[in-house]
């Protein structure tokens, strides 16, 4: 099954279960979704439950908040992360806060989904990642799906929960293949150990997990070491327990992320490690992230602006040699 099919299946199964679940967004209905995540659902559930909205992101999220107040369980799609900036007031001032400000009188069972990241030459206004901003907002749960099975289970969980969720996808993952195990439930807030190892803990999420996995053979060969690779899965809350166990075993932490390095999401993970498990670290942690530049159109420059399997391997090898680890 493809990643986008797993998301589709999660939507389909939950919509089938509960007619309060509605989906809204640009081209999600008749057109089938610009990344085909909602394909087929319009035919099955009709235009009242697959709502094609105008290009008005503030309203997409703002209306979803109101739908939730009115008793529905909306799942909103923002076509690309960059456009979510238009909805930041609704996400931060409303979606994240109404439950708190009303002392629990209002609950917002809702999900906002969007793809993000560098795809292929979509340029600066279509290529960004905003988890660093959104994980700084109390009141939101933020999940990032890097694989097919997680995408299915985690989206289902988010839809069925009574809390407001942001669900982050990556544009280059939609056609990723994988198995969905519908029998084995998962805890969407638990980090996933993608590969066990004993010498260095590499923490990552979303598409970078695949890039890290592609880099690992090179790293292990160059250094003669074994890498443990962790997919955070839930970006807020973070499963610090799993990280702690791993780093206590390996004594070394590398954080790999696609967003810009300055103020990037990984700063939180590294700063947590420095504060909380300082003495477990045998070497300075390493952050590998996107460069501090807008994303350029040209393909060579674009690839130079984010981590790639090659640059990840190279940076880790250099860091390791420099620190004698």
């Amino acid at each position: 099954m493809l990643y986008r099919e797993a998301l589709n299946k999660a939507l389909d199964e939950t919509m089938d279960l509960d007619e309060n679940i509605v989906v809204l967004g640009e081209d999600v209905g008749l057109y089938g979704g610009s990344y085909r995540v909602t394909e087929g659902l319009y035919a099955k559930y009709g235009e009242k439950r697959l709502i094609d909205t105008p290009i008005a992101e503030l309203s997409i999220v703002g209306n979803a908040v109101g739908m939730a107040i009115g008793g529905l369980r909306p799942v909103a799609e923002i076509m690309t992360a960059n456009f979510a900036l238009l909805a930041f007031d609704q996400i931060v001032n409303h979606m994240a806060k109404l439950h708190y400000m009303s002392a629990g009188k209002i609950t917002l069972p809702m999900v906002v989904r969007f793809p993000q990241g560098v795809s292929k030459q979509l340029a600066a206004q279509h290529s960004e990642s905003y988890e660093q901003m959104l994980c700084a907002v109390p009141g939101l749960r933020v999940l990032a799906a890097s694989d097919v099975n997680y995408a299915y289970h985690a989206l289902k969980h988010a839809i069925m929960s009574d809390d407001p969720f942001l669900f982050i996808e990556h544009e280059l993952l939609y056609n990723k293949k994988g198995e969905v195990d519908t029998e084995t439930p998962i805890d969407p807030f638990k980090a996933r150990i993608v590969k066990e190892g004993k010498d260095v803990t590499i923490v990552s999420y979303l598409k970078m997990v695949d890039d890290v996995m592609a880099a690992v053979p090179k790293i292990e060969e160059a250094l003669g070491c074994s890498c443990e690779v962790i997919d955070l899965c839930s970006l807020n809350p973070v499963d610090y327990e799993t990280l702690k166990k791993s780093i206590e075993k390996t004594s070394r932490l590398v954080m790999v992320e696609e967003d810009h390095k300055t103020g990037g999401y990984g700063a939180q993970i590294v700063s947590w490690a420095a504060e909380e498990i300082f003495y477990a670290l045998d070497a300075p942690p390493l952050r590998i992230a996107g460069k501090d530049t807008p994303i350029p159109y040209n393909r060579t420059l674009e690839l130079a602006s984010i981590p790639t399997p090659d640059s990840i391997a190279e940076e880790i090898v250099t860091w390791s040699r420099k620190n004698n680890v």
Partner: protein
Amino acid sequence: MDKLAAEEIYYEMIRGRAFEYAAKEHYMQGDISGFLHLDIGQEGLSVAAIKAFEKGDVFSTYREHIMAMARGISPKAVMAELFGKAAGVSEGKGGSMHLFDPSHFFYGGDAIVGGHIPNAVGCAYARKYQNNFDGVMVVFGDGATNGGAFFESLNIAAAQKLPLLFLCENNRYAIGTEITRVAPFEKQSHKAEPYMPALEVDGMDAVAVYKVIKDAQAYIQKGHGPIFVEAMTCRYEGHSMSDANRYRSAQEMALCKARDPIERMKRVLTERFGMDEDAIGALEAKAQQEVDEAVAFAAQASEPAPEALYTHIFVEGGSHALS
């Protein structure tokens, strides 16, 4: 409007004004803090609109004490909220600008100008989905009609034919900025005209407001889609307690107050319904007493527990609600 309704509206107007003056006093004494926006001058509009929109849901702004009470939230719970107490309608977490009570179909109290309008649109969608055409009333000021959220909402509500009543309280000012300096005309109903019927009413005349809102709700109940009502009104005080109201002349204020909604409603009671001064005096006394009780209640109510800081960030166990 029959006598009973008129009496009730008058009562809530004077209770509202007394409430606002009490809030002002306790703000100055330090019992209330933050932004406090008084509705004095606009009581007729606030009370009559809410009473007329009997069924259905209401979304309002930060200037909402009187509306919240007109919806049935007790003055005690509102005053306690202003005092930041646990017995407040939002348990002291929201304050003056954030009064929520879904059991009275009242959803705030929003401090982002225009930010609640898309929420009301979404709620109207839910009501239509549920085949409930009593609909939603969303209240906002003239200042909110210049923001994108308002415009997007006009378009969506019209495109989706939602049961939504837009009520614009045009008091001609957004803090210190007169509406005609930032919009090309004084009446903001013009903005709604391409999308839906747009009505105008004198917001200082509670009887007229009552009637127009009744008519407007009847329109949306028929499934015709949204409707817009603009009520011209006037606030007597500064925008909030931190505004000295220097941008309006004494003459302008005097003209405002000559249209006083309470005086006008009183004349309706005496002239149309033959109420005598005694009966009115009794209402006034009762209103003042209710407000005094609310203040006393708020003053002695307890502070929230320290743990309250950490509750209601998420639904208890909510992340596993249906899984």
